[in-house]
């Protein structure tokens, strides 16, 4: 506990960076993931191909490689800090998984709904937005919740590129206090502070939507 007192500001700084990176990556990956999910189910062949390639590439490469590539290679051309590289890497990686979840949600809606919407004069995009996606998200919520929790934990990738997050600060504290055990327990608890409410919220959302339907 004296460790927590002594390094409190350091932990809080790390917590703030982890929270910020998680929120940015959460929003970013949700938007990107939905976009690529729609591309994958669209009627355009190029759209399907591009969506597929994107998902396969980012889903099948380790997050660490994506992040280090951004931090060490891409940063030579486009200046970015470790925090930015880590957050962008996290967004790209997670969006591929979210695209798959959303796609599964879309596919679970019968084709008749799309056909009906189109027959009533809606364009593909309109039908997607008003008819299909709201239902698809309802189906996808449990698996989306999983992805978001994974995202928060995966944000520890920032530690490898000097991203100032919880894990990074924890490594520094462990190295200067020599008390690795306590440090990592404290960090684990800080992660729980983010992930527990998140998982409860997803659960709550799930039951709420079920009641509505």
């Amino acid at each position, binding site marked *: 506990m004296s460790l927590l007192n002594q390094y409190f500001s350091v932990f809080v700084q790390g917590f703030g960076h982890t929270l910020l990176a998680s929120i940015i990556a959460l929003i970013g990956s949700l938007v990107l993931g939905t976009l690529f999910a729609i591309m994958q189910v669209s009627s355009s062949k190029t759209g399907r191909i591009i969506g597929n390639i994107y998902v396969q590439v980012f889903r099948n490469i380790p997050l660490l490689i994506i992040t280090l590539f951004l931090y*060490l*290679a891409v940063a*030579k051309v486009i200046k970015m800090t*470790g925090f930015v590289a880590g957050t962008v890497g996290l967004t790209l990686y997670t969006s591929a998984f979210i695209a798959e979840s959303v796609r599964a949600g879309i596919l679970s809606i019968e084709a008749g709904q799309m056909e009906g919407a189109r027959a009533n004069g809606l364009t593909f995009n309109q039908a997607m937005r008003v008819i299909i996606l709201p239902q698809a998200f309802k189906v996808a919520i449990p698996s989306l919740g999983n992805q978001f929790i994974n995202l928060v934990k995966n944000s520890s990738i920032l530690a*490898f*590129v*000097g991203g100032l997050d919880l894990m990074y600060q924890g490594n520094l504290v462990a*190295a200067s206090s*020599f008390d*690795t055990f306590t440090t990592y327990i404290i960090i684990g608890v800080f992660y729980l502070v983010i992930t527990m409410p998140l998982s409860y919220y997803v659960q709550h959302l799930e039951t709420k939507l079920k009641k509505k339907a």
Partner: protein
Amino acid sequence: MEKIRKRRFGIIASLVLAALILLGAFWASVTIDKNKTHQDTLARVERKGQITWGVKADTKLFGLMDTKTAQPAGFEIDLAKAMTAQIAKQTNTKLSAAFVPVSSASRIQLLKNTNIDGLISTMTITPERAKIVDFTNVYFNAGQSLLVKKDSGIQSVKDMNDPKYTVLVVVGTTAAQETKKYAPKAKIIALQDYASAMQALKSGQGQALSTDNAILYGLATENPDYHLVGGVFTKAPYGMAFDHNQKPMTKQANRALKTLQENGTYNRLVEKWFHNVPGLDWHDLEVNK
């Protein structure tokens, strides 16, 4: 009825889970405690017939993993082998040397957990560290310096004292703690190991890499566009480390080190590893017999 039963099951399951986690944490802390007050290192080493050394695997000249043989190679590796042989001679036992790559961040914990018996890993003797491990006498005199790109215009650590500059360091090194004192305004980013810190320097994530000059010389030989500037601004004497209160082991190691320095083995190793490092006169590193 069904609902109550389900709820009861949920409560019991959570209680069991919580108990399991507590038990696990308790077991872990007991194990760590046991390791803290564990047996004599020298006795353990003699029983095993082996000294397991924690060494660097990412530091050219001192300890670098040879990708062909999958064995680390460097000055410290050779010194550890010689030390092992010498200690075996002194104690009249058969000892072999084994090597475990360690990082600056994890090495003390590994030593405390008895995953390794001793450390010879470019580790500076500091008062804080000496409180929790036993150091041998100094086996190498290093000092903190800066590695910068040749056309960067940076001459010394004073030039770095500006918020527009970023100094790259490695987690768990003394440089990570000391740099702030010499360039308080500069940003400091700590990376996991020297390989990634060097890559980050090349990618422009920072303008200088700071750590002990001995390590920087190794990096400079591989990256001719970079050079050391400003001399050394701290003293960093390297010592081998054993767990705390291991007097017999430390005594044997000090005796072995003294013998190796007197019989010329030490100087031979210095020549082997440092004789053609640009900007470094290896004769300065020799010990006088």
